[in-house]
C-alpha cells in the first residue's frame, strides 16, 4: 500500500477523531480558543510520534521475540507516561517560553486515547517502520486539522442554541456533521 495513499487516508478518510473516535476528550473539552487548539495538537504530535517510534521498536524487538505480546498495553502506557514526564522536564528547564504555552497540556496527554490508540494500531496493523511513521504523522495531522476547525467553529456558536443542546450535545452534532462531510472525501 503506497505511502501517499496511507498518508491521505490517515488525514481524511480515516481521520482518527472522526472515524476512530480517538482523542475525543481533548476534542470536546478544549477551551474554545483556537490558540489552545494549536498548542494541544502540537503537544499531541510530539508525544505520539516519539512514543510510536519507541513502542514500535519495543514491540518488534523485545515483546515479540520473547512471546510476551500480551504485555503490550502495560508497556506502551508506561512508555507514554515516561515520555510525557521526560518531555515535561526538558521543556520546563530549557524552553521556558514553550512551557508556558504547551506545558499544561502535557500531563493530560498521558490519558489521551489518541496516543495509546495510535501506538496500538501501529503494531496491530503490522506496518513496516516507514509505514508506521507515515501513519502516525498523518493521524496527528488529521487530529490537528480537525481540532483547529472544531475550536474555530465552537468559538462562533451562538447563544441561541436550544437549552438542552448547549455544551456537549451541540459539540457532538457538529462533530457528526464534520464526520459526515469528511466521510465523503477520499
Amino acid at each position, binding site marked *: 500500500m503506497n505511502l501517499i495513499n496511507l498518508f491521505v487516508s490517515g488525514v481524511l478518510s*480515516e481521520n482518527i477523531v472522526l472515524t476512530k473516535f480517538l482523542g475525543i476528550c481533548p476534542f470536546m473539552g478544549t477551551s474554545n480558543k*483556537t490558540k489552545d487548539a494549536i498548542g494541544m495538537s502540537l503537544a499531541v504530535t510530539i508525544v505520539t510520534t516519539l512514543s510510536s517510534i519507541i513502542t514500535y521498536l519495543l514491540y518488534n524487538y523485545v515483546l515479540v521475540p520473547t512471546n510476551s505480546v500480551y504485555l503490550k498495553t502495560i508497556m506502551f502506557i508506561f512508555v507514554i507516561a515516561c515520555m510525557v514526564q521526560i518531555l515535561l522536564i526538558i521543556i520546563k528547564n530549557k524552553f521556558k517560553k514553550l512551557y508556558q504555552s504547551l506545558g499544561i497540556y502535557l500531563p493530560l496527554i498521558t490519558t489521551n486515547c489518541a496516543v495509546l490508540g495510535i501506538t496500538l494500531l501501529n503494531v496491530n496493523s503490522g506496518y513496516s517502520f516507514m509505514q508506521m511513521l507515515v501513519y502516525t504523522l498523518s493521524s496527528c495531522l488529521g487530529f490537528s486539522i480537525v481540532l*483547529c*476547525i472544531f475550536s*474555530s*467553529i465552537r*468559538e*462562533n*456558536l*451562538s*447563544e*441561541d*442554541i*436550544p437549552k438542552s*443542546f448547549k455544551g456537549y450535545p*451541540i459539540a457532538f*452534532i*457538529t462533530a457528526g*456533521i*464534520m464526520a*459526515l*462531510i469528511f*466521510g*465523503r*472525501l*477520499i
Partner: protein
Amino acid sequence: MGPFIKSSNKTSRMMFNLLIALTPIILFTVYKHGYIPYTHGQVDVFGIFYPLLFVLIGSLTTFIIELLYYLIIKRTDEFKTSYGFFPGLFLALILPIKTPIYVLLVGCLVASLSKIVFGGFGRNIFNPALIGYIFVVATFSFVFSTSYYEVDTVSKATPLTNASMVSGIGTYDELVKPYGDLLDFFIGTTPGSLAETSTLLCLLAFIYLTCTKTIKWRISLSYISTVFLITFGISRLLGVGLYYPLFHILSGGLVFGAVFMATDPVTSAATTTGQIFQGILLGILTCILRFTTTEGVATSILIMNMFVFILDKMGSRVRFNSYACLPWVVLVCFMIIVSMFVLASKKRVVAEKDPNFNIVNKEVTDNKTIYTATQKGYGGNIKADVVIENGKIVSVEIISHNETKDRYQSVTDANYINKLIEGQDNLKNVDTVSGATVTSTSLRKLLINVMEDFH
C-alpha cells in the same frame, strides 16, 4: 453573531431578490420536467406542474417545521425573520426529479433541524439545504442512480457520472456528444437535478443578484474562475481542446452551487479577501473531488463552511494595498498549479486490475445487483454470489471452493463473512482469520474487487 447582514429590512429585500432570481429557473424546470413529458404523452395536464409541486412541498415542509419549533418555544416574533422556506426550497431544487416524496420530506426535516439546532436563522454554521442533501446521499443513495434522472422522458446518467466511467481524460465524443453539444449544456437540456442544469439561467440570476447587491459575487466569480483555470491547465497539459474546461464549468451544478449555495449570507465569509479565498479553495476542492468521487460541489461548499471563520480571520489581516498580500497570492497560485499537476497525473494512470479476480455473471435490477465472481484462494478459485442492494452488500454466498476443510471451517467459525459485510465500508481493515489467512484474504479481496466494479 455570524457573518451576515444586520438590518432586517435589507435581509427581507435580499430574500425577495433571491426568489425573483430563482423564478426563471423554476419555470424552466416546469418546462423541462413537466411540459416536455406532457408533449410526449407521459403525464397528464396536472403532471406539468409536478416540479412546481415538488418545490412547494419542500419549501412548505421546512416552513412548517420551523413554525412548529418557534411555536413550541414561544418565540414567534423570531419566526418572522427566519425565512424557513429557503432550506427546503433549495433542497428540492438540488434533488433529482424522480425523488420519492418521503425522501424529500426526510431531507427537509434534517435540513430544518440542522438550522434550528444551531440557534436558527443567522446562526447556523452549515448550509442547511446541503446538510439535508448530504443526509439523503448517505441514507437514500439509490435516489442518485441513473433511473431517477430524466430528460426527454428518458433516463440517462448525468454528465458527470458518464464522465467518471470514461477512462483517461475523455474526448469530446465521450463527454459532450451523448448529450448534444455544449449549447445543450449551456441551456440546460441535460440530465441533472431540478435546478442545476441551466447554466444560462444561473448566469442571468448571477447578474441580477450582483446588480442588486444581494449576493457575495466575489465568491461565485473566484469559484468558477478557479475551476476553469484548473481544468484549462489540465487540458493544456494533456493536449485536449477547450471543450474540456467548458464541460466542467457547465456540468454538475457548478454554476448553481456557486451562485446560490456558496454565497449563502449566513455561512459564507464576510471579509472581501476571505470571500476570494473561499472561492479559490472551493474551486480547488471541487476539482479534486470531481476526479476522485463523482460529486464535488456540495461537499466542497460544506467543507468551506467549516473554514469560514478561519478565512475571515485571515481576511481581516490582509489589505490589498500592502505588500503583505504577496505571499498569499504566491501561495494561491502555487496551490492551483499543484492541483493541476496532481489531477493531470491521476488521469494518466489506468486502474490496475487484479488478475486473480474474475466476474462470471452480473445481474442488475432496480436497486439490486447480483455478482457471481471468482477469486483465487489457497487451493483454487473461490466462487461466490454477492448481492448488493441500494449500494450495500447484503449477502455473500459461497458456491464452490477448493480450500482445505480446516481452513474453510476456521473461516466459517469466525463468522468471517458477516464480519466482512459488517465492515464493508472499510473492507481493507477487516482483520483476517488466523490460521486461514490466505482464504480469508481472498474472500476479502473478492468483496473489494466486486465493490470496485460496482462503483
